[in-house]
Every structure is written in C-alpha cells, then in structure tokens.
C-alpha cells in the first residue's frame, strides 16, 4: 500500500464522452413517469432510450453489443445522470460481467446484446431464506437427469424486480459432495418456465422491489448453464464485488446533489437552525468529499492496472457511512418529511438503512477486510 503519486484527473477522452453525453441529454430529456406506470416499467422505458443513444454497456466489447470502452466511461455516464437527478443506467453491469467472464461465446453473442438493449430484463437469484450473508449455505438443488437436463428445486429471496424480468441468473447446488465453494453452478433461467412462481414482497418503504422465487421441479437445459459445473461460486463473487463499488453504482453524484441542497437550506435558515446541525451538515460534506476522493483514487488505481479485489469492502463501508449519515441529517434538515406521506427524502432515507445490509452486510465486509486484506488468522482454537 506504499504506492507512489497517482493521477486523480479524468483522461481526456472521458471529458469528451461527458460532453457528447450532455449534448445528447439536451436533445433527449428525461421522460415523465405516467401516473399509472410502475417505477420499474418507467425505468425500463428509460433504459431503452439510453440504449438507443448508445449509452448502455459502454464497457462491453462491440461484438456483444457494447462500445468496447472502459468501466470508467460507463461510470462517467452514471455520474452525469446522477448530477441531473435522473435515474441511472440500468444496473446490469455486474450481470454483463458475469456473462463475459463465465459464459460461452455462443451465450455472450446471444444474451449480451439483448440484455444491453433491454430486450431481456434480468434479475439475480442468489440469496435464499436460509442463505443471506452465508451465501454458501444455499440449498436450492439442480439435479442432473439421465437426459442431461437439470431438475431444479428450491426457493430464492430478495430477487429484485423478478416480477418484471424475463430471465434470472440462478445459482443452484449441482454437487452435494464437493466442498461448498465448488458445489454450485450458474444458470440462465427463463422465468416463464413451468414450475417457477414469482411472489413480490412489500419493502418497508411500501415499494415492491424484492421478490420471492419458488422453483418446483423446474427443468433447465444443459445449454442454459453458465460456465462449467462448479463455477457458480467464483461467478457469484465476481458479481458481488462489482455490486459493491460506489463507482459502479453511480450513487456518488446523487449524494452530491443532496449535500448541496442541505448546505443551501442551512444557509437560508441560518437563524433557526438547531444547535450542532450546521456542523453535522459539514460532516456530511466531509463524508461526500472523502467518497469523491476515494472513488477517484480507485479509478486511478484501476487505470494503473490494479484489479478489483477485497478492498471493495472498504469502499462499500465508506459508501454506507456516507449514505446513512447523509439521510439521517437530511431528516433533521427537512423535519416535515416525517409528517407527510410518501416524502421522497424519507423514502431515500429508508433505502439508506438497507445500505448496511444489501450486497453483503457491513459485518461481512469487516470479515472480508480482516481475513483477506489484513490477513488476520481464522479461528484457530486447539
């Protein structure tokens, strides 16, 4: 970690891309959500508009429907969208990476362009009622039949937007004898297949994002397996490490907008601000600036050739810290949010409470840092 000086600046072609994207945005304003339109349907419409401009899958090779640029280019697009308060690019980057890394050439050519275009909507079937933090405790089974197909039985949970999805990247146990980390395989499961039941769950905010997925004697063909048997665990780990990065998720610019709003409001109400709140807003500014600095440092490290690894757990904890303190503070600055129904800040506040749970809880991130970054010993009781 005794690295030398880094270049924290944007490469020149990134600036150009930002300019092009801004120009495109000027001609393609954000569509209005229709009163009866569910949020995911609206986001899907936005996904297709973005794709029509070539702004989805920038880091995916051209032969798979992308533009063959770098993850930083995709991040720049997310950043520009966040800075306008617009919904981000569809969060399919991690699924695309899983397919690029583990899928067959045929799968990549068939699935990726449709994924990027929004022709297929995907969800992720990893977690289960009995396997949340302990993902390796999954019990959904894919049993090989004599004809080569698999017969899948089990239940998945927290499958975001499964009710709007056509395909699911599913993890199931294919080998009951192998050690946990070599016993899973990944599949592409069409959700209209016989034996699949999707049931939405209502979140604390009232939104229906998460779903349960019930799998009863579902047949999956061998050709629908992604990677070899036993590749499921490394595929899942690749996927979640992409989910953990503040850069990849495009939250940063959204925080920036709220931080600015808090500062302006505090300034306008400087006479009536409760004691200590100004300092707390200042602390949110610090959290935000630290996150910007940290994201830029990671970017610079990536450009210098370092690959994403366990340090993404540091990133996730820093993002969680910033997000949770920011929305707690926002509720103090906008106390009316607690006395209205459906306040936007309050909805985001509730979502911020999930930041320390999704994508691996904060406790799991600390375990990863302790074991893989600090190399602290495992339980070695005699």
């Amino acid at each position, binding site marked *: 970690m005794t690295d030398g*000086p880094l270049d924290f600046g944007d490469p020149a072609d990134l600036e150009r891309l930002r300019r092009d994207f801004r120009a495109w945005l000027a001609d393609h304003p954000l569509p209005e959500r229709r009163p009866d339109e569910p949020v995911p349907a609206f986001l899907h419409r936005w996904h297709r508009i973005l794709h029509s401009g070539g702004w989805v899958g920038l880091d995916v090779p051209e032969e798979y429907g992308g533009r063959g640029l770098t993850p930083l280019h995709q991040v720049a697009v997310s950043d520009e969208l966040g800075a306008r308060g617009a919904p981000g690019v569809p969060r399919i980057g991690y699924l695309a990476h899983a397919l690029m890394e583990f899928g067959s050439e045929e799968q990549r050519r068939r699935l990726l362009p449709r994924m990027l275009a929004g022709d297929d909507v995907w969800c992720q079937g990893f977690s289960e009622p009995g396997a949340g933090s302990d993902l390796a405790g999954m019990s959904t089974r894919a049993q090989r039949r004599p004809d080569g197909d698999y017969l899948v039985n089990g239940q998945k949970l927290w499958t975001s937007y499964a009710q709007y999805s056509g395909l699911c990247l599913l993890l199931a146990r294919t080998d009951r004898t192998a050690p946990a980390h070599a016993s899973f395989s990944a599949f592409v499961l069409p959700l209209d297949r016989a034996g699949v039941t999707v049931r939405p769950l209502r979140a604390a905010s009232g939104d229906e994002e998460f779903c349960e997925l019930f799998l009863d004697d579902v047949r999956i063909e061998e050709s629908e397996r992604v990677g070899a048997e036993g590749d499921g665990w490394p595929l899942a780990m690749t996927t979640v490490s992409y989910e953990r990065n503040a850069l990849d998720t495009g939250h940063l610019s959204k925080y920036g907008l709220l931080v600015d709003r808090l500062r302006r409001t505090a300034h306008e109400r400087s006479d009536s601000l409760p004691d200590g709140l100004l300092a707390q807003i200042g602390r949110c500014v610090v959290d935000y600036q630290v996150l910007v600095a940290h994201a830029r440092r990671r970017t610079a490290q990536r450009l210098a050739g370092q690959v994403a690894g366990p340090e993404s757990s540091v990133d996730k904890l820093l993002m969680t810290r910033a997000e949770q303190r920011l929305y707690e503070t926002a509720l103090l600055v906008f106390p009316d949010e607690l006395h209205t129904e459906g306040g936007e800040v309050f909805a985001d506040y509730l979502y911020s409470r999930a930041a320390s749970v999704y994508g691996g809880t904060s406790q799991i991130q600390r*375990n990863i840092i302790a074991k893989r970054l600090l190399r602290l010993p495992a339980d070695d009781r005699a």
Partner: protein
Amino acid sequence: MESEEFTLVRDMVRAFATRHAVASADDITPKSRAAAQQALDGLGLAELRRTTPPAATAQECALLAEEHGRLPLTTSLLGTVLLAPELLRLLGADEDGPRLTVALAPDLRLPGPQAADLRAWDCDGAEAALCADAEGTVTRAELGSPTPTADLLRSARQAYAVGEPLGRLAAQDRQRWQGYALVVVASELVGAARSFVEQSVEYARDRVQYGRRIGSFQAVQHLLADATVLVEACASATRYAAWCLDHEPPDRALAAARAAKAEVNASAVEAVYAGMQVFGGIAQTWEHPAHLYLRRVLVGATVLATTADLLPALAAPEATR
C-alpha cells in the same frame, strides 16, 4: 519528479526514519534530537519546495510527510523542509537566511491578523520562523524559550514577530498556502495512524489469549477492519487534496484540503484508539510507543484548523463550487 526519482527520495526518507525513530519516550534526548535532525538535513531535501516551479509536487510532498509520520521521529520535515520554504517560494523571496520553520497562534491554529504572540512549531533545526497571518501578511519571527506540548516528538517555542512584513500573499496564494499546509500536516498524521494500525494488526496476529491468537476473535477483527477503513478514508482524502493543489484552482484545492483535514482530525485519532485497544495494557505504559502516536495525532488534530473550525466552514454553500 520522475517516478524513479521520487521512489529514490522516499526510500531515502524511509531508511532515515528506520535509523532515527525512537523506540520509546525515554530515548528522546537533546542529543538524539540533534543527531536525527542533522541526519535529515544531510538528505538534502531543502530544495524540494524552494524553487518555482517546485521540484516536488504537492502530492509528492504529502507522500513524504506520510512516510515521515510512520515512525516516531523528532525531526522537523514539515516545518523546516516542506512548509517554511513554500512560504518563501510563494512570496518570491530568495534570501538565504537562517533556517526557518513556521509560527502559528499559541493554540497552534492559523494565526489571526497581526498576531504578535506566536508559537513556532516543529522547531528542531530552526533558527527563526515565518508567520503567515489570516490576511496573508508574512512576517519573520524570532524564537523564544521552548514551550511544552503534549506531542513529545515535536518541539514548540515561543515566537515574536519582528521587523517589517516580508510581503503579502495575494488571495489565491493565501488559499494555496493554507491548502498546502493543511494537506502536509494531515498527511503526516495519516502516516502515523496507518503505521500504528499496521503494528496493532501485527500484534493481533501473534498475541495469544484463551489459547487463541487474538486476531482470530471477530470482535478484534472488526475493530481493526473499521480502523483500516478510517485510514483509507484519510489517505484518499489527503492524497486527492494534494493532487488538487497541483492541478485545480486554489479555492477548490483549499476546500478539498479542509475536508481532508476534517476527516483526519476525527479518523486518525479514532484509528489510533482502535490500535491501542488491540495492544491492551502494554499500550498504556510510558515505554510503549503507543502514546507517542496518540499524542501526535491528538495534538495534530488541533494544528492549523480544528474540527470546530472546519465543519461550519465546509457547510457554507460557497465552499466548494
């Protein structure tokens, strides 16, 4: 600097630090201090920030300050090598006078306008000091008697402004100066916190209680994981702010530097607390270096700008954009 050259300079500072770091508070004597300072002077770093354009970027200076903070050193890299020469450089003064450090307010914050009662800070090897007040007026100060400070590694002395002002920093240069000083001071604290947390991680790998290495206990692991996150936050913030000094307009760089100092004020201390908790009883003794680290980050958090100075300033809408 070319990257090979920077690596060379950093390795030189590292080798010097290994040789001249004190193992314990009892090792700090006037003789050890003088020998260490003489060795540092012998490295020939005085010109790093003396010419325009400077030989070393702000980021390189920040990384050297970080390196210097890693071990308990009594030497004045900050005051005499990185800070006072930068003030002379910004003034365009090209005198070869006595060896200078910086003079601050008696509570070690940035001095107010026309402050007369001053405190020279990081004085080892210095014969006089420079004071840049809140309005950018730079005055020379004479050194008086030593004053106590809780940071046993650092020497402070009374100082008195003498003579006509040497010059006045224009608004942008004042922002450059303050931003640079905040970043350099914060970077040394980051080095101290990072190194101390690393030492406590090492200790947790070896120390056995209940028949187990304590680093295998999840309570200890999470303590150290949190400390690591804090150190990384500090490092990202200070290095980015340093880069901003090299590449961004001075007002933006100053905002980044303030945010970095605010993060470090809180998190370097918190990280050292975590490390001390892992060391347990031994870290409460005079002979263990833990309190040298604690004293350094604790006093460091008050140098130039305290958290109470910084947070309200950062909450103002015009601070960054």
